């Protein structure tokens, strides 16, 4: 598939993504991060939290999946990803409910310089940012 050039303003979303406790258990198994704060009410309470929270790396990875799906629609592959940065600014609490927690993910190209496009991500929970200064660098 031919690569569509990336220009400022291109992007995707916002899309809503739900995360349940089962998703966190699945991520724990897939990633090897079994910190109980991500699945145990008791461990969360011992750290002063009301409920377990999502792995920061789950949120970072889940957001990247939206970027990668969008990039595939522009004729790119994950090998066109050059870099990714996020600051974990706010936890994503995941109570043990059927509906879980909804986050929203959007991405927009903010600059294209020297064949490198910078995609700024907005990842939010209740309109508050959970990944700060989140940027993906893509080979344009």
């Amino acid at each position, binding site marked *: 598939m031919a690569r569509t050039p990336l220009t400022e303003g291109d992007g995707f979303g916002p899309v809503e*993504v739900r995360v349940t406790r089962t*998703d966190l258990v*699945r*991520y724990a*198994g*897939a*990633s*090897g*991060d079994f*910190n109980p*704060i991500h699945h145990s009410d008791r461990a969360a309470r011992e750290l002063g939290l009301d409920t377990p929270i999502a792995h*920061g*790396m*789950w949120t*970072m*990875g*889940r957001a*990247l*999946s*939206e970027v*990668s*799906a969008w990039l*595939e629609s522009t004729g790119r*592959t*994950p*090998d066109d*990803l*050059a*870099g*990714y*940065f*996020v*600051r*974990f600014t706010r936890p994503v609490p995941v109570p043990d409910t059927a509906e879980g927690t909804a986050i929203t993910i959007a991405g927009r190209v903010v600059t294209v310089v020297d064949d490198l496009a910078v995609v700024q991500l907005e990842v939010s929970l209740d309109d508050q940012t959970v990944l700060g200064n989140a940027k993906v660098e893509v080979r344009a």
Partner: protein
Amino acid sequence: MPITPEHVGRRYPVTKPYLVSQAKIDEFRMAVGDRTTGPQAPGTFAMVIGALAWDGLFADAELGLGLHRTMHADQRFAWSRQLRAGDEINAVLVVDKVRNRGNVDMITVTVELSTTDGEQVCTATSTLIHTREEA
């Protein structure tokens, strides 16, 4: 003895080579909602191997670090390409930066992932906020 700026530059021995399998990639894909159709692992899969390199850091008795007292503050990846099934990966962790403030340590570590043939694949840089146990 806590971790201090004197530990900057400390390198840990290369981890046991990690053989990337299609089954593990598929499992990780499902866990992060990846829908791409090619053979590449999702970009953050690199952290599955990176976390194995962290084990050496947390096992270093001289630093006195506790994983359960550690928060992940930020994360950066720089990729040459994505991992694929069949890649055999070495991971080397280096301590880049340490700042001590009261009983809190801010630690930046870099894990370099390369194939056992020497091809550099990914650099994963993490800032960790560690709270020391009260003496």
